[in-house]
């Protein structure tokens, strides 16, 4: 029969232990969720190479970054061995972009997917790029027909007092049959889209596609559009 004192200390120890166990359980759940959050999807870093004088007359460091859009996630090397969900289109190789601040960023994209019609025609127009245009295989355009779009690169973020607004909307032209990639077969020519925009100060932004490329779930915005890491990602300006 233990004395009251020892039994009391026993109780206290028991209490502490079970609380610690509880905290550990919660922490374990947290780490699991954190691990499954796909936060460390491959990041593309824009590389500065020389300077350039923008139309506004100022001189900026000139950074370059490339990315692609595939009709099938298998071709984007970002979803592990499985190649991601069969038949889902995907950006790749990069989902998250890291851009230097106060820089003239030129982004080149090779796109290989088809398309039908935008839910919101506004996103067929080019917004926020230098000169308000994008360059498709050498031709400058300031907007695309509403049904000529395969995906869009729409960059936006929290309009906070502490970070500069940054909004870019680039519609990507839909590629004709035969110019769309098939898993396993060599990549076709597709289209090459080039555009530039000027970053502000440091900040966290996101981009997502505004073309309804989910399957026929409501307004075709389910499936891939709701899934992380195919048609949306983070953009960090450092």
């Amino acid at each position, binding site marked *: 029969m233990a004395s009251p004192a020892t039994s009391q200390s026993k109780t206290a120890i028991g209490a502490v232990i079970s609380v610690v166990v509880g905290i550990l359980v919660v922490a374990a759940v947290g780490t699991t969720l954190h691990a499954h959050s796909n936060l460390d999807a491959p990041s593309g870093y824009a590389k500065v190479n020389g300077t350039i004088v923008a139309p506004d007359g100022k001189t900026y460091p000139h950074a370059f970054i490339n990315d692609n859009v595939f009709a099938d996630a298998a071709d984007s090397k970002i979803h592990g061995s499985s190649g991601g969900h069969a038949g889902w289109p995907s950006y790749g190789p990069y989902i998250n972009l890291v851009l230097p601040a106060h820089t003239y960023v030129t982004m080149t994209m090779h796109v290989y997917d088809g398309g039908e019609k935008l839910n919101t025609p506004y996103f067929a127009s*080019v917004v926020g790029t230098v000169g308000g245009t994008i360059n498709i295989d050498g031709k400058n355009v300031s907007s695309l027909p509403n049904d000529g779009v395969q995906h869009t690169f729409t960059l936006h973020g929290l309009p906070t007092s502490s970070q500069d607004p940054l909004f870019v909307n680039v519609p990507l032209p839909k590629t004709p049959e035969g110019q769309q990639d098939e898993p396993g077969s060599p990549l076709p020519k597709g289209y090459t889209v080039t555009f530039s925009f000027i970053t502000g100060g440091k900040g966290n932004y996101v981009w997502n596609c505004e073309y309804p490329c989910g399957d026929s779930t409501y307004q075709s915005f389910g499936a891939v559009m709701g899934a992380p890491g195919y048609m949306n990602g983070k953009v960090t300006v450092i």
Partner: protein
Amino acid sequence: MEHHDDEDLKPTPGERVKQVLKDRDVRQVLFFFVLFTALFSILGLWAYPRWMPNIMSKEMRGDESIMIWFTVISAPIAGIVLAFAMESFIDIQKGDTPPEDGPAISGHTSTVVIWTALSFLFCTVAIVWGMTEMNTWSQDAIAKESSAMVVNVTGAQWNWSFNYPAQGITTHELNLPVNQPITFNVTSDDVNHSFWPVELGVKVDANRLAITVVHVTPDKIGPFEVKCAELCGIYHAYMETNGQVETRADFDHWVSTVKAQGGAQ
């Protein structure tokens, strides 16, 4: 029990009040009542103006005054309740056996009646206030219908776009001329969103194939934020954009620059 007291001591009203005020419990209740009422009133008058953002329209001013003055009005109610709670709380007893019983007060009709009447009065005030406010808003809307500038707001996962039919431009930022009545026709291209120009103090949901209307007249120059207040999917948190209330001249200049860029910005 009132009538009992009447029978026991037949005092003049003044004496009765003195009698009651001598009572320790009554004094404690009065003390805490004053304390908590003051506390909550100050909280309301002090906190909300500091907490709530920049006021840029009559509607927003109305929202804030409701927050402030409802707090002040409800302060006495909070005061009464907390005062009684404290009065008993400072008499708490420890021990492992139940303490001796208190007075067997199993009800007091007039108290219940007065209390109900008071709370009825309180919520009548709240209702009347709200009704009057709503009424003035709709009166305004009707009065300014003709002179209002229309902006078609479209929510799409996860961006806003604003179409100015009269100016023939569509933009991702919401610029408005100051003191110009605005009619927002809000709709959605997919799921429900909620159009919330924070500093303008109005809000309405965006529904697919339905147009919801909200009127506001910004009366202060400066930036404001447009947020989505209805969970709309993975990037709901980022469905925000900037707004700007500016002079007519600045607004027109902005419109012309957008036009120059092909009508979309």
